């Protein structure tokens, strides 16, 4: 596999590809790799902004009765932090990974609809700019990332912040649906010869499920957002109790979108670690079929659990029981996944590269976050803990300790492929340990804060609460360690992009198709594709002498339509 580095290749750095030079090529590009890089770069930029907002909150909460920011600004800060991290950081980051990797992994030239892909990206950028313009347009939204009615009604928040929030999310939502449709069409119609659905990498399976969730859940958010916009701009009464409207309707709509949304965010993370762990354990993934099936199961179940976000709203007991049960049930397929990752590592010859370290920490932290999540399915505990810091701890364990650790693992893993240069492992290990310490220091104590009754979204807290004060101080100090580790990460990326070691085609000796092309891949992706007889085409390539199995070609499943649209696919 490594013999490829012996052949003479003039281009082994992203900045040397002629087609990618000049700013204009990045504005007009419809190349899935460029758009993927732009998605990821923008997402990481908003990650920094979200981090700054988070630090402002932690400084405010460092000591009791602090006046670092005003009460009103604090509301704006946590609203913008949540909205930024979910819609401007999380979603674009996973879309960046998927539009970059999915065509490469299935051996396609580009996405099914390259222009739609570009539209999805630019619509996201404009939506993001519109959201941040609210600071200049009369005040940022201040109703939290889920913008509960009737607080969002004109009578309660009269500045235009919520209008910007709604418009921006509507625009981003439309772009997300477009990208979701694009990804599904790509996966279903553009697979290389031999690449059946049973043979695509599991990352692709997870992205397929995620895309279905995007396509089917975002319209609920869009519909709700249109209603709140009409309420505010056209004086309709959907969510206004004074005119007979129903605030609970908003909650139902929002969480019908919102619960699939958390799986939209985490499934790509699952996909990343499912690619990383086998490569660095030098074993095939354990129970690939179970992993794919449990992903699909999560996809279906995620539409049936939304009311566990609303246990405190006075639903009838029959409703409570049904949704408590379904919420307990959805933990099962997730547990299957954790099991298969551990079983894959078991007995493997593990190389603890930085990517593998992040994937390992992901398993542990996500399990903690998952367990605290199941807590909310237990109705009495939910009533006790809802709207407390326990929820904050939970969401950060699954999204930062889970999704973000997985995505960072993916960045360490695929950075050589994208840029042609290796990230520094030395800086990477420093980044990893500082981030693990900073992250757990910041959020582990919040579980206890929540149990002690500290409500979320409070601006400050009184003197004389020993546990609360000490834990908040510790959390704030740890947040700076976390922020420092992120700075180190960005420095690592910037430095390695220019000075990093040349990667070569396949530095990790991985098995999936994206490693069969050059690093960075040429604009046309592949000179020629290796034949695909199994889930690990590159393994087959190096071990081809033993057993070439052309019989596998006559698979019964969906043959890709490489010939059905002549002229479309060069």
């Amino acid at each position: 596999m490594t013999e490829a580095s012996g052949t003479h290749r003039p281009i082994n750095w992203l900045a040397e590809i002629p087609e990618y030079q000049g700013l204009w090529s990045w504005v007009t590009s419809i190349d899935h790799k460029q758009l993927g890089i732009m998605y990821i770069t923008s997402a990481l930029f908003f990650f920094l902004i979200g981090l700054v907002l988070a630090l402002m909150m932690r400084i405010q909460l460092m000591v009791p009765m602090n006046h670092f920011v005003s009460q009103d600004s604090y509301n704006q800060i946590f609203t913008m932090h949540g909205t930024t991290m979910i819609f401007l950081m999380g979603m674009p980051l996973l879309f960046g990974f998927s539009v970059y990797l999915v065509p490469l992994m299935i051996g396609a030239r580009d996405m099914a609809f390259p222009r739609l892909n570009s539209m999805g990206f630019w619509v996201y950028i404009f939506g993001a700019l519109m959201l941040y313009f609210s600071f200049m347009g009369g005040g940022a939204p201040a109703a939290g990332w889920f913008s509960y009615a009737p607080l969002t009604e004109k009578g309660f928040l009269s500045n235009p912040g919520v209008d910007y929030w709604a418009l921006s999310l509507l625009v981003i939502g439309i772009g997300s649906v477009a990208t979701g449709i694009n990804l599904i069409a790509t996966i279903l119609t553009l697979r290389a010869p031999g690449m059946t659905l049973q043979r695509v990498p599991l990352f692709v399976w997870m992205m397929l499920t995620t895309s279905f969730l995007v396509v089917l859940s975002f319209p609920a958010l869009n519909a709700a957002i249109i209603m709140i916009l009409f309420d505010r701009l056209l004086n309709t009464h959907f969510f206004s109790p004074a005119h007979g409207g129903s605030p609970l309707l908003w909650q139902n709509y929002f969480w019908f979108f919102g619960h699939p949304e958390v799986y939209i965010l985490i499934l790509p993370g699952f996909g990343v670690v499912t690619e990383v762990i086998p490569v660095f354990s030098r074993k095939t993934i354990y129970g690939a079929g179970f992993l794919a099936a449990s992903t699909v199961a999560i996809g279906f179940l995620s539409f049936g659990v939304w009311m566990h976000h609303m246990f405190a709203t006075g639903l009838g007991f029959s409703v409570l029981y049904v949704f408590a049960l379904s919420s307990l049930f959805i933990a099962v397929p997730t547990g299957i996944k954790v099991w298969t990752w551990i079983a894959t590592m078991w007995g493997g010859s593990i190389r603890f590269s930085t990517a593998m370290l992040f994937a390992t920490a992901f398993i542990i932290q996500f399990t903690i976050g998952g367990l605290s999540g199941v807590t909310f399915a237990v109705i009495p505990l939910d009533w006790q803990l809802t709207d407390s810091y326990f929820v904050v701890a939970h969401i950060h364990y699954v999204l930062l300790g889970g999704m973000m650790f997985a995505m960072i693992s993916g960045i360490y893993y695929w950075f050589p492929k994208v840029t042609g240069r290796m990230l520094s492992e030395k800086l990477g290990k420093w980044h990893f340990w500082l981030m693990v310490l900073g992250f757990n220091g910041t959020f582990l104590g919040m579980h206890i804060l929540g149990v002690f009754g500290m409500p979320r979204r409070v601006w400050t807290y009184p003197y004389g609460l020993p546990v609360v004060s000490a834990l908040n101080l510790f959390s704030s100090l740890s947040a700076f360690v976390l922020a420092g580790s992120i700075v180190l990460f960005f420095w690592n990326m910037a430095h390695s992009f220019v000075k990093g070691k040349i990667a070569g085609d396949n530095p990790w000796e991985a098995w999936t198709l994206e490693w069969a092309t050059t690093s960075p891949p040429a604009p046309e992706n592949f000179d020629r594709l290796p034949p695909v007889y199994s889930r690990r085409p590159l393994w087959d390539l190096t071990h081809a002498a033993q057993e070439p199995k052309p019989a596998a070609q006559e698979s019964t499943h969906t043959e890709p339509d490489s010939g059905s649209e002549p002229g479309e696919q060069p």
Partner: protein
Amino acid sequence: MIKNRVLVGMILFVASESIFFLMLVLAYVHFHNVTGATAAAQLDPIKTGLFSIALFSSSFTMWLAEIARKKENAALVRLWLFTTIALGVTFLTGQGIEYARLLMNNITISRDLFGSTFFTLTGFHGFHVLIGLLLLLLMFGLAVAGRKDEPTHVGMQSVAIYWHFVDAVWLVVFSVVYLWRYV
């Protein structure tokens, strides 16, 4: 499984839009116990029903246009596309007349929950009909002035999927909004 990416894309888009309309219909249904009386008093199921027949039959003519395209009968493609457009315009005209009458009676989007839910739901449906008409006009323009193989069969199929979807949504909306009083 469908292997054409355009059709896959359109089917997924329609699936996504179905959820969108489902939410709008649910909002209407949610408030029906408050708004049902106004709906019964102000809406005219017979008149709107007649205009609805125009929309329903346009699905049929669209199907005929698609068959004509498959058989490469250019004259029939033009004829049936034109009929489909005419029927779609008839439906929108009917909706415009109805809106005008309601507004004359001071039923506006901001007056009460009936106005809010009714105009949002039917308005978004009308908007989708309008988009469909633009797509059909595009097809018709290609049929009249396009190259020999235009509109392509796949193009016709995908527009047809969208048009049948708009039609099916109206079937649900009409039943819920106009016919509920008879239940």
